[in-house]
């Protein structure tokens, strides 16, 4: 297995030569009424005798909402959990940055919400590219999540009567989003982190912080461990277990600029993919319309502002191209309130993808504002005139403050500038109803898997899915796997361990040995721009083919020109970046291929060739009502289609005109 040499660009395969393999199906979801499937699955699942659980080691990689919740819960149940995070503390996982809230079908408002409605909204929001069984289970479990988090002391917003407050979010008609000011992710994560900390102190979880998973160990066809690098000493070690759970988040950072944390990366899922886990729908990425635009080439990441700003702000650009006058000097009749013009019914409140794409279109026309013309105005002048400054401040004060801190512009007097940014990735490792990947014993939870959001994610659903997977879904299905499977101990001198360790070490040495003249960030920026331009909100065949041709060149250049000072036997952040970049190159190619083959417009992305006569996204259910699960071969990938059946929510075409 010397295929890491393909990294060095010696034998570039062509992704375009992909083949279509056998269809794949989710065989784990029980048949029967959708409301009863999760109950039935849990009942049919094998149990592990509580006394035997501590004999099972389970590796959990990642400590975000999904990983933290899973680690704590499995340890509470008696398993011996070995948990990894590359941050210095489990509390820093990027779930912490989620602002908005978490959905749950509690119907506390008596406004007609129900599990059925949350299920319906999520399937529809995902533009009919998610699995009904999974989504229904998610809606069912949502109710328990809130109970669990409240019991842990998560300080959700409350009414004066002491009961929980909710709000409506992301254009949904019911008020089902629970929140903790603008820091819901932080508070939910701290709840999981505290539960995890309790288990660490009790000795049930063995935590390896500042340790990054670099490969998966598969023995006799089953996931039996990982190879990880201690980021402080550089030591490469194997860790064995009876099952491996990946909770390593999304891959939005492949774009370099995104709202993800700087160190969020795709290495864990990509290495698992190379070891046999199918990767599903890699081109399904979500772009958030209200981010603060980049201020220059130095920009290292993008900051998101709550979508709620669009409730009162009006979005516009100058009518004329290259109009560089300050916004205050552009008269009313020379402004184009383009969302209100094109979508009179919804105006500035069109869904995320439409708002994002429209912004890109006007900027591509040369009418963008701010540095580099990559921005549009979000103007509160009317709202301030209508409601008064105090009312606007009460609603959005903290967001205005954040904007002002970053840009040094006062949004009360100068319109905000916003631009879309990569925010979330719906694609991920393919998993069945049990959250198990195509490698037995390897599970993927949270954003790392592909299962629940289809082609677009509803606001306030990411936190729900992460916690659902970690607290409630994975523990019983993992139980079933461990209860059903006879696992012989893997000896510490098993040849597979040495082989995988050697591959990992070799790759780091290869990177260090190049000693070229370009930094990891310079390559990452270039790759990100290529993807953003060609595999972002709007894609077309020519662009995707261009990207597919350019990525191998860039990768080859990487292996000629990368420069990483220092050694592998120390804290070396440049080496960490370069090593992640190697995987991004491969992932980027698969994303472009997936985008190329899915020649429909769907969910968060728009395929220029697939539009309705009035220019809106045209989904093509006859051809594309499937999840695309890609198999890694070392050569051209193989596509396995999982057909999606809609028995309960019937596909309709969206219309916002």
């Amino acid at each position: 297995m010397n295929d890491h040499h393909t990294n060095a660009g010696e034998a570039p395969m062509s992704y375009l030569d992909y083949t279509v393999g056998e269809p794949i199906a989710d065989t784990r979801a029980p048949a029967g009424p959708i409301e009863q499937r999760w109950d039935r699955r849990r009942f049919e699942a094998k149990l592990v005798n509580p006394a035997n659980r501590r004999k099972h080691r389970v590796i959990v990689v990642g400590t975000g909402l999904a990983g933290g919740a899973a680690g704590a819960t499995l340890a509470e149940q008696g398993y011996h959990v070995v948990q990894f995070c590359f941050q210095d503390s489990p509390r820093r996982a990027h779930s912490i940055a989620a602002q908005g809230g978490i959905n749950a079908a509690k119907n506390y408002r008596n406004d007609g919400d129900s599990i059925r409605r949350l299920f319906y909204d999520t399937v529809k929001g995902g533009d009919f590219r998610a699995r009904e069984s999974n989504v229904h289970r998610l809606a069912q479990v949502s109710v328990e999540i809130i109970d669990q988090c409240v019991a842990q002391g998560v300080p959700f917003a409350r009414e004066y009567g002491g009961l929980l407050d909710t709000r409506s979010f992301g254009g949904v008609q019911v008020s089902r989003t629970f929140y903790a000011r603008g820091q819901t992710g932080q508070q939910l994560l701290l709840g999981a982190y505290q539960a995890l900390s309790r288990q660490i102190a009790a000795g049930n979880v063995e935590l390896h912080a500042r340790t990054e998973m670099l490969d998966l160990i598969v023995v006799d066809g089953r996931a039996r461990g990982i190879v990880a690098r201690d980021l402080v000493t550089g030591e490469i070690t194997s860790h064995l277990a009876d099952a491996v759970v990946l909770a390593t988040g999304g891959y939005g950072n492949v774009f370099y600029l995104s709202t993800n944390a700087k160190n969020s990366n795709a290495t864990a899922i990509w290495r698992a993919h190379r070891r046999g886990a199918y990767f599903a729908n890699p081109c399904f990425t979500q772009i958030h319309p209200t981010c603060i635009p980049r201020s220059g080439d130095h920009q290292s990441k993008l900051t998101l502002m709550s979508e709620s700003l669009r409730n009162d702000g009006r979005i516009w650009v100058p009518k004329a191209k290259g109009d560089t006058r300050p916004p205050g000097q552009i008269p009313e009749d020379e402004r184009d309130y383009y969302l209100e013009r094109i979508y009179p019914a919804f105006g500035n409140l069109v869904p995320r993808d439409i708002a994002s794409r429209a912004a890109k279109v006007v900027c591509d026309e040369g009418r963008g504002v701010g540095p580099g013309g990559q921005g549009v105005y979000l103007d509160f002048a009317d709202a301030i005139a209508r409601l008064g400054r105090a009312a606007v401040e009460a609603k959005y004060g903290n967001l205005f403050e954040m904007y002002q801190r970053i840009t040094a512009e006062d949004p009360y007097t100068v319109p905000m500038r916003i631009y879309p940014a990569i925010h979330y990735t719906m694609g991920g490792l393919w998993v069945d109803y049990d959250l198990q990947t195509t490698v037995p014993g390897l599970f993927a939870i949270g954003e790392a898997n592909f299962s629940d959001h289809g082609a677009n994610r509803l606001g306030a659903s990411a936190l729900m899915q992460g916690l659902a997977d970690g607290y409630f879904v994975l523990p019983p299905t993992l139980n079933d796997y461990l209860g059903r499977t006879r696992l012989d101990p893997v000896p510490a001198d098993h040849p597979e361990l040495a082989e995988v360790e050697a591959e990992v070490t070799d790759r780091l040495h290869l990177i260090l040995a190049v000693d070229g003249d370009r930094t990891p960030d310079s390559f990452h920026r270039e790759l990100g721009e290529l993807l953003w331009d060609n595999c972002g909100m709007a894609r077309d065949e020519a662009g995707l083919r261009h990207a597919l041709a350019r990525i191998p060149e860039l990768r080859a250049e990487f292996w000629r020109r990368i420069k990483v000072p220092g050694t592998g036997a120390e804290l070396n952040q440049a080496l960490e970046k370069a090593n992640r970049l190697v995987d991004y190159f491969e992932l980027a190619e698969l994303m472009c291929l997936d985008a190329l083959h899915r020649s429909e417009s769907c969910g968060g992305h728009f395929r220029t060739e697939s539009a309705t006569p009035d220019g809106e996204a045209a989904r093509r259910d006859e051809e594309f009502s499937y999840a695309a699960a890609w198999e890694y071969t070392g050569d051209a990938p193989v596509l396995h289609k999982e057909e999606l059946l809609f028995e309960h929510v019937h596909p309709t075409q969206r219309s916002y005109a």
Partner: protein
Amino acid sequence: MLMASATRTNRANRTPAAPGRPPSRAAALWRSSVGKKAVMAVSGLLMLAYLVAHMLGNLKVFFGPDDLNGYAHWLRTIGQPVLHHGWFLWLARPVLLAAVVTHGVAAYQLSRRDLKARPQQYVHRRRQSTYATRTMRWGGVILGLFVVWHILDLTTLTVNPAAEEGHPYQNIVASFSTWYGGGIYCVAMLALGLHVRHGFWSAAQTLGVNNPRRDRALKAAANGLALLLTAGFLSVPVAVMAGLVR
């Protein structure tokens, strides 16, 4: 084997450090940094209460020798006839001594711990916090030394220039008439003011009586108390040195 693992699981589900009763509450309190600090707060407040009474008594000096000496004599009669003459003072002294000692020992131990917790200083030093806060340690040492001097000067009269037993007025005037007697006293009282200014609010914080509503009032009270004490105590040597009291 089965038994063992079951036990293990049970333990895992319990609060890990679920406390077996600590040996004694007082010992546990003294061992912890927060408890030790509380001991300092209580002993400090005790001394502060004593100082307020002391300062008020000192003001008798402005009513002449008979008033002050009479007051000093009266102090020895408190509690009579239940207590013997002078017993009240002898009962108060161990309490005060205990307060001084625990305050000092706790301060010493906490300071050692604090210095160890910050072994390396910043290269770029920046003036931090208020003067009163920064001088708590050295101010405390100065006050401790002063107390020794003060007792030798006006209680045991060992170093007093007049040393007339039973005539505190004459002793005070004699002491403050020397440049060093008045000087030492004045420096010590300024240190006292600073110490009380931070110490009083700090004690409120340490004993947990502070909250956002009370914070300003407590700080004002600390400043007022510090000012009153210092002014009250200083008025005597200043009056002596100015020749108003002789």
